[in-house]
Every structure is written in C-alpha cells, then in structure tokens.
C-alpha cells in the first residue's frame, strides 16, 4: 500500500476501532471471538483499501464486512475448518466471568445469530430496516420479524434478571 493510503487507513482505523470492537463484542458476546472478527475485518479492509475507501459509505461497508464475517462462518468451508481446529484451544465463553457481568450481553448470547445481528445493526449501528436488510441480504419484513422476536426474548431475559439487580442496588443504597 502506498504510504499515503496507509496513513488514511490508519487514521480511519484509529478513530473507528473502539466502536468496531464494541459492535463485534455485542455480536459475538465473546471477547476473543470479537477480537478475531475485528482483526479479520480490518485486515481484509487493508488489502482492499483502495477499493473500499472509494465506497459511498465506508462505515456501512465495514459494518457489512464485519457482520458477514460473523454470519458467514457457517458458509465458508475453509474458515470453518480453521475454526474447528482453533476452538478446542480456547476456554468456552462461560469461563469468561467478565462477560457475565452484563445482563444484556448474556441475553444477546441467547439469541440466534441472525436476530443478534439485526438488533446490533438496528440499535447500535443505527441502520434503518431497509439498510439492515441490505447488509444481511434478506427482506425488510424478515428484519422486522427478527427484530421483534429478538426484542421479545431480550425483554423476557432482562426482566427475569432485573429483580436481582434491583435487590443488589437496594442493598448498596
């Protein structure tokens, strides 16, 4: 990459990295997997920077890259082989006590990947129903139904946990 283009890439990544990492963490609900998809997304972005930097909406392009990477593990045989060899080397997500400290993350983990992706794109990425549908390659109707099912599940999960939080807060107060 030309030094000038590389400076542009670094500047873009420097500004966006914290938010991309947060998005990845909401998608994966696992710190290691989140780092993985951020890393693979941004490495792919480096290699394809010349084309990507000309995109009409670079953020949307990168979000799309990341969400596809999150969802496509099942569809890309090569990646799946790689992952199958990597998974045993890692502790299971349940071993990361740090991730249980947020009820929302625990709730997101209970959702199917598709619903998680819809909620994260809609409410963290602030994408419209139509834009979310485009990123996911499905219909707006499908986004709406996934969104509604995901919200319903989350509501249920968070409500059952809420009293615990309230009791602890009351005790601390």
């Amino acid at each position, binding site marked *: *990459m*030309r030094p000038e*283009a*590389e400076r542009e*890439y*670094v500047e873009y990544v420097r500004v966006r*990295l*914290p938010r991309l*990492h*947060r998005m990845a*963490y909401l998608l994966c609900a696992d*710190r290691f997997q*989140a*780092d993985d998809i951020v*890393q*693979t997304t*941004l*490495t792919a*972005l*480096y*290699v394809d920077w*010349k*084309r990507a930097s000309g995109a*009409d909406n670079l953020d949307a*392009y990168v979000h*799309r890259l990341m969400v596809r990477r999150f*969802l496509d*593990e*099942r*569809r*890309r*045989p*090569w*990646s799946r*082989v*790689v*992952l*199958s*060899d990597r*998974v045993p080397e890692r502790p299971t997500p349940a071993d990361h006590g740090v991730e249980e400290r*947020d009820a*929302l*993350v625990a709730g997101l983990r209970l959702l*199917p*990947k*598709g619903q998680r992706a819809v*909620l*994260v794109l809609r*409410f*963290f990425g602030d994408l419209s129903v139509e834009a979310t*549908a*485009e990123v996911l*390659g*499905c*219909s*707006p109707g*499908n986004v709406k139904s*996934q969104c509604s099912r995901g*919200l319903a599940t*989350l509501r249920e999960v968070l409500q059952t946990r809420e009293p615990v939080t309230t009791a602890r807060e009351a005790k601390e107060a």
Partner: protein
Amino acid sequence: MDDEQELRNRMEAVDAPSSRIEIDALLQAGRRRAFRRRSVRAAGGVGLATAVLLAVPSILNATGASPAPREDVAGASPTTSDGPVGPCQMTELPVPPGMSGVEVEAVDPTGRYIVGNSTVGQNFRPVLWVDEKPSALPVIATSVQVTAVNASGVVVGLAHDLPDEYVFRYENGAYTRLRTPPGEWHVYPTPAINAAGDIVINAEPRGKAEGEDSIVLLWKAGSTTATQVPLPTEANVYDITDDGTLVGGTYEKGYAAAAYTWDQSGKPRKLEMPGGEKGIARAARGEWVTGSLSLAPARWNLRTGEVTKLGPPLPPDALDKDGPGPGVQVNASGWVVTGSPRGSLLREGDPIDLVVPAGQASDVKGVSDTGLVVGQARDKNHSILGPRTWRC
C-alpha cells in the same frame, strides 16, 4: 421507556472488555497478507526446481470427449505425459469497453469460455469471453454475478434485486431464472454446472444464517424447477461432475466434518480422511476431487481412493488466517487451483510457475483441461491490474 430506546442505551453502556488489538499489529497483519500474495510467484520458482523432476499426467489423454485443444497448447511439451510444466506464459485478456476492475471468475474445461465480473459500487456486472473475445452481458438486476460456465458456454450465476436473490442460467443470449421451492430461501455460496447443464447449489431458509435446515437443490439441464436431493442434515454440495456426482461434505454443529460424494439418490461415498482429520470436498473433475483436509489443500483420487495433502497446514494462531487456501477447482490432470487468499496453481503440491512481469503477482481462479490458466495480475499493492491467461 420503550424497548428500542432502552436497548440503544444499554448497548452504548455495555462494559466491553478491553481489546487486544493494536493498530501496529493490524498494519503488520495487513502488510504480511499483501506480502504473502506477492510472494506466490517467488514460492513458485522454488517449487519448480523439484517439480521438473516429477512426472505429470497427460492432460490431453484424460480429457475424453472434450473438444480438441488449441494448436499451441497441443504442441507444447508441458501437456505431454512426462514433461515438466511451466513456466506458463501470460497474455492479457481484453475487457469490454468502459469496464474497469474486471476480475476473472472461472474457465470451462475446454478453455473456450471464461466468465468474470466487473463491479459498480458493491454490485456485479457480468462478462463472458468466447475465444478470449469479451462481451458485457445484459444487466437484468441490481447485481448480476456470473460464477461458472460449462463446455457448451452455458453460464450460471447469482442475481440480486434486494431482497430478491436467485440463481440464473444464461444461454443463447437469454437469462432464465431458476426457481427455488415454495418459501423464502437464501442460496449459497455459488451455483455449479456440469457438461450436460445440470446445476446445483445449497439453500437455507431466509433468516437461518448458519446453514440450519439447509437443503441441496438440483436443476436438471433445461429445467427451471428444482428438485431437492435427499442428503443428510447439514450436508452441503459445491460441485457436480459430468456423470452427475455431487461433491461436498457434511458439517457438525457448523464445522466441516467429512468430505463426501453422493449420487443423485443420495447414496454416499465418504472420501478418505486419514487419522480422524476433518475436511470438505469442493470440486471434482474426472477421477480427481479437491478440497481441504485439516488446514491444508487436499486432493483425492476417486479411482484409487488415495488422498494427498498439497501444502503445509495453516498455523492455528495465524492472525489473519492467511496461507494456502483450500483446493477450489481441479482439472482432468489433477492440477489444483487453491482459493482465497492465495490463488495459486498446484501440481502434486508444487506451485506451477506462471510468468508475470517484474513487480506483479498472479492470482489464479481456474484451469482448463487443456492447461489454460485464468486469473488476474496484481501489483505489489495487491491492486488488480486486469484479467490474464497463462498457457501451460
């Protein structure tokens, strides 16, 4: 407070664990990946030193009913049974006027037909070469992507008119939409076609993003109605041979498990998986099947049952999952094209030397039975310089 706003607030407030990622490491990973692509040709030179000592199976004798090869190919010693292969000389493939960024996607077994795509924004624009003369195919949807072509010049691909997506056949100047069964389906990854014109692809119900409940669809030649092939749960198919054999594998909980071929009644043949290794088959031609085994590109021989790993495994801790890709195409002589990120051409595990000008690298996408290699040249920044062919 409404659910949506509360979710927004809570997502912003999530206490995300600190990231291990540093920008310096990202830069190194990106540079290394770009560098590895540039190194393909250098690695090919090293491989050739030993490759010339090995015998090469005849491509011409193995092609069976394929049309006669080009004269210059037929006269080249690399295509005879015992000669060395390469170096293969490069030719620029012309592109239709006004098109830029064209990437070659595939070549038919005879080498007469080549397909590729240009892009406009994030949408594909299809190109077909016949005897290396390019034409831009009509654009009938927001995005039209051609992915394979058979020896009769029948092209298949994917059209997107979001949210609509479908497999099409392009033949005699006209597109035909291939219908999926009732319901909403997402087809993946790309359709494959055999000499007769039979077409296969996988489909999963819309909204099931992990291949859950996926099925394998087959359109017999000329048909627009799919039949579902009776295969096990989580089986996926990636290619169909000229005798109608389906090539792919099974998955367990989303991970590649075992490479298989099936006949169209679903009768399986499990390919050799030594030592409990995992893998998947991606493509076949004649007696050869290619795919991946553990982390290496692999090749099976259907006649002998023998399996060969064609490269070193990728280190599990590779930051960018770079390295030799899986085998994605094989010709009648068993030459294997490896997929992204490293589009190279392997014969018995050694890269075949594809000549490129100084400062450029080859990125292989396909090889015909006649030894015509198609792909693109890239510069040292990995930018595409344009479609190319190499004659071996």
